[in-house]
């Protein structure tokens, strides 16, 4: 029997971000309109494994994912051991643009989940001309901390176990068991303090309240998709966002939680493909 081999290709690219060189891992599949996918806090691009393998998507899209520095197979920069990792809006935006420049990705659709869903709002504000469209999954202007973040990074608590424990309920209750535990496995493998450092952007520094009203969907279309069971960024949070941004398009994904592409990839495709068709046909709403 021939072994199943995926058509996904991986590689490393060396890019300068905020004055420091970084070794960044990426995966890509398909050809056509670039679709740049951004993973959640404390995880990596394995969350997009099914999108990379979806023929419905790769037939006319080049799906591209990368692991942010410190995540997955991307290295932390030199000197990481001397300070606490903290993601900021500027660093995140620079990372995305530097990766696009290095990989010569032009006019992509950027799709981001959670922190990725937040950063697409920053991209919409600061660099709308560089994107064909933006898709925010579990996207909100702000999330208040609802637990003590120090639990995520302390030597007497296993970081992998506690990070998975924190996010496990964010997965919809009917998710396929294998997809649920694969999603948690990524969290169990995160480096010490990295999930917490990403949440600095998500729950503190990257707050866009009072700013999202300035997003101009005439410059770059914005689509928002949010899972019903997400209690970190709730459907109401995304609904509020959609109300504040004229021309944005918003849908709730029933039965799904915070990680649509990883916990319920097939159900998610039923929401994503129509959005991509709208973008392709130039239909904004």
């Amino acid at each position, binding site marked *: 029997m021939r072994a199943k081999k995926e058509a996904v290709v991986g590689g490393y690219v060396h890019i300068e971000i905020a004055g420091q060189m970084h070794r960044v891992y990426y995966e890509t599949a398909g050809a056509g309109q670039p679709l740049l996918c951004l993973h959640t806090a404390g995880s990596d691009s394995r969350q997009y494994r099914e999108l990379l393998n979806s023929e419905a998507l790769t037939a006319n899209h080049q799906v591209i994912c990368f692991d942010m520095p410190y995540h997955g197979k991307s290295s932390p920069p030199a000197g990481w051991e001397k300070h606490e990792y903290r993601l900021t809006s500027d660093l995140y935006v620079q990372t995305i643009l530097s990766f696009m420049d290095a990989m010569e990705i032009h006019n992509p659709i950027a799709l981001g989940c959670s922190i990725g869903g937040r950063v697409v709002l920053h991209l919409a504000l600061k660099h709308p001309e560089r994107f064909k469209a933006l898709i925010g999954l579990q996207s909100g202007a702000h999330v208040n901390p609802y*637990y003590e973040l120090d639990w995520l990074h302390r030597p*007497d608590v296993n970081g992998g*176990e506690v990070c998975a424990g*924190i996010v*496990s*309920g964010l997965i919809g*209750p009917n998710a396929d068991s294998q997809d649920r535990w694969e999603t948690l496995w990524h969290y169990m493998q995160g480096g010490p303090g990295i999930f917490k450092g990403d949440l600095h952007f998500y729950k503190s520094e990257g707050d866009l309240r009072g700013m999202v009203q300035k997003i101009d969907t005439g410059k770059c279309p914005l689509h928002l998709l949010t899972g*019903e*069971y997400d*209690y970190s960024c709730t459907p109401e949070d995304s609904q509020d966002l959609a109300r504040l941004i004229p021309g944005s398009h918003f849908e709730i994904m029933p039965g799904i939680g915070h990680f649509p592409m990883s916990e319920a990839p097939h159900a998610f495709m039923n929401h994503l493909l129509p959005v991509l068709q709208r973008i392709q046909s130039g239909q904004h709403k």
Partner: protein
Amino acid sequence: MNTKQTTSNANEWLVHRGRFVNVTFLLKKGEAEYLVTIREGSVVQIKPGPHVMPRWTFALVADDDTWQRFWAPEPQPRFHDLMAMVKFKTLKVEGDQAVFMSNLLYFKELIQQLGSQIHAS
């Protein structure tokens, strides 16, 4: 499939995962209080109140309706997970949370299973 056998194996695996857990915690359901004692991952006692001078390390406090919703066969969003209930302030975690947070996946599953026993008590 032998459901009883499957459940038993699942419990054995849960006990294994909690093999370093030795604690007594309080589960408060409205006015009702249960002191749950765990030794090496196994529940050895569920003691219903009223209690005189109870001793516990941490407490999970929610009203009766919240626990009923949590233990429903298909819980609605916001009642499907302990941390979801913490976020929406329908559940309070009190006391020393170290053992709870260090074994969060274990406790999430254990509390789920405790529903049938506490309903029956």
